[in-house]
């Protein structure tokens, strides 16, 4: 099969320009409505539950989950499906443990909740460290991934691709703040969900709408291994090497599940809805959309294996990332490939925009306003600093994307999730539920979580064997979450018990009316 992938076809460029045109028009409209900090960070708290459900899905479903999981299922079969389930199960946990109290207690960032009754300066600094580290690692992974993907799809150079992403997403965030970013997420989520739905229906139509026929075609499809051509066989439908060590599997599972509860760009979205009830309903929508997505994306992956074939997928990109675009071209020709490529591009833009807004809010709202200015900054000054922070974070993101060119950054998303669940999540949860949680407890827990996670990742097989090509690793687990999160909780509890804080305990009782009844919530 001949593919036009990697050449900028008219349809790909046309769809891309339409998407960028519409989103920039929305940004122009949003810019006129973005004057106060409440509008810049929280879209004026006027986002509906359904809109926020879509926006949460947009923030969460990255190009990695769309192209990456489809590719993993295409090349590795069932193992890709295991991965897909892990990406969903954090959402119910987010709902049960965090969503409503977070909405009631906070203002713009999750640090608002942690710092609510503790000493502002140390807690804000620590939370910003945990938050910025999470967002930075996540952004590097997105940037490097997007440079490669755009190069593969449109044939433009890696650096150009990164700069284009940087410029467009900066336009969204800088001028349109959270209002524009939310609409970009909504558009992207709708496009992605409908694009993948069409792709799934087209795949199933080839097999009389019977998944069993599709699976059979997968086992019969051909693959070349070490020069020998043979059928893929039954093992495509069986769990393989992905999950072999139970500890490793559970540790990765903890990072994926509870890491969601500490992702700043996701948590920030709960401040865009009017109240706790809307926050709750939006999680139900998001879980529905994301669950649906992860149920159908393996069909796209299996479809690519059966219809495109593993050999061609690997020839275009060894990691399998082009499985879904190739399948689109095979089933409906170049125009549909153009559409899917443009949707993938929109996905990248939207996720990076969300991350940039979260990174900028940690710098401006947590550090500048609460630490430097001790909470005394005029509205005008706050918006100005928020915009400058956006520019700073955006430029840093582009530079890191270029610096990490050609590096294996697959571990970075895992690292971001591990820091989120070890540094941000324990402090957030304890500040909501535990009366005796103290400033020292929060700071030491966040720092332990951040430092230990980074250290253990450096010592793990992910870096030692995969990146540095050593034969052995100092730390056995690929994802350290089970150790680093436990350590962070233990440190938080022990330090809090040693350092009692009378004022924080009294305030805990007072904040209960706000946490549970929403009295005084912003």
């Amino acid at each position, binding site marked *: 099969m001949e593919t036009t992938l990697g050449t900028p076809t008219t349809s790909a460029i046309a769809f891309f320009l339409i998407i960028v045109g519409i989103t920039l028009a929305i940004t122009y409209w949003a810019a006129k409505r973005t004057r106060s900090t409440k509008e810049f960070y929280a879209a004026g708290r006027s986002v509906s539950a359904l809109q926020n459900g879509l926006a949460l899905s947009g923030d969460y479903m990255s190009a990695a989950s769309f192209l990456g999981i489809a590719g993993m299922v295409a090349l590795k079969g069932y193992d890709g499906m295991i991965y897909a389930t892990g990406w969903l199960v954090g959402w119910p946990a987010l*709902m049960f443990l965090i969503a409503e109290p977070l909405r009631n207690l906070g203002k713009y960032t999750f640090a608002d909740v942690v710092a609510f009754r503790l000493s502002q300066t140390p807690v804000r600094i620590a939370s910003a460290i945990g938050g910025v580290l999470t967002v930075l690692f996540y952004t590097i992974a997105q940037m490097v991934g997007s440079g490669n993907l755009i190069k593969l799809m449109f044939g433009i150079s890696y650096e150009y691709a990164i700069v284009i992403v940087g410029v467009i997403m900066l336009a969204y965030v800088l001028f349109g703040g959270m209002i524009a970013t939310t609409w970009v997420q909504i558009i992207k989520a709708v496009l992605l969900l409908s694009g993948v739905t069409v792709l799934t229906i087209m795949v199933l139509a080839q097999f009389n709408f019977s998944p069993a026929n599709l699976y059979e075609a997968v086992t019969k499809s051909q693959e070349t291994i070490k020069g020998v051509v043979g059928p893929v066989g039954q093992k495509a439908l*069986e769990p393989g090497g992905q999950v072999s060590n139970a500890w490793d599997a559970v540790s990765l599972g903890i990072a994926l599940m509870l890491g969601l509860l500490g992702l700043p760009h996701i948590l920030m979205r709960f401040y865009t809805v009017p109240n706790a009830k809307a926050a709750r309903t939006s999680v139900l929508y998001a879980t529905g959309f994301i669950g649906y997505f992860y149920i159908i994306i393996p069909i796209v992956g299996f479809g690519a294996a059966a219809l495109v074939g593993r050999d061609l997928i690997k020839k275009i990109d060894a990691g399998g990332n082009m499985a879904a675009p190739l399948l689109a071209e095979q089933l409906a020709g170049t125009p549909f490939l153009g559409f899917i490529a443009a949707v993938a591009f929109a996905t990248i833009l939207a996720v990076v925009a969300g991350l940039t807004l979260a990174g900028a809010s940690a710098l401006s709202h947590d550090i500048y306003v609460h630490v430097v200015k001790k909470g005394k900054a005029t509205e005008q000054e706050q918006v100005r600093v928020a915009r400058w922070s956006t520019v700073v974070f955006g430029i840093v993101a582009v530079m890191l994307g270029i610096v990490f060119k050609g590096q294996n950054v697959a571990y970075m998303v895992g690292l971001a999730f591990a820091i989120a669940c070890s540094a941000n999540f324990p402090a957030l949860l304890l500040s909501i539920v535990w009366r005796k949680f103290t400033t020292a407890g929060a700071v030491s827990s966040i720092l332990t979580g951040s430092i230990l996670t980074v250290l253990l990742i450096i010592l793990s097989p992910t870096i030692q064997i995969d990146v540095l090509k050593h034969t052995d690793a100092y730390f056995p687990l690929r994802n350290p979450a089970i150790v680093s999160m436990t350590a962070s909780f233990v440190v938080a509890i022990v330090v809090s018990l040693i350092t009692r804080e009378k004022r924080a305990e009294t305030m805990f009782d007072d904040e209960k009316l706000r946490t549970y009844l929403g009295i005084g919530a912003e």
Partner: protein
Amino acid sequence: MKQTARQMLDSPEFKAMVTKRWTISVILTAILFVIYYGYIVLIAVNKPFMAQKIGDVTTLGIPLGVLVILLSWVLTAIYVIWANKSHDPEVRDLKSKVQ
């Protein structure tokens, strides 16, 4: 009669509401953990179980994976239904009693 914030915090109704909210949350979280980590550990320790065929080629692991996602959503829906039906009216009622 309107209550002060202090009276509300000390009232048995408020305490019961908070306890109930966390009981439900913890139970649902525990079920979620059993479902998801059960699935993952099952794959890690008993691959032949997951690889057994339930059709010509289809393995048991495929519907189980889909089931984990569906059940996660069902748990979320159960929480929302409980919250809308029972929790919200309780919160509204308590809120109206505070000065």
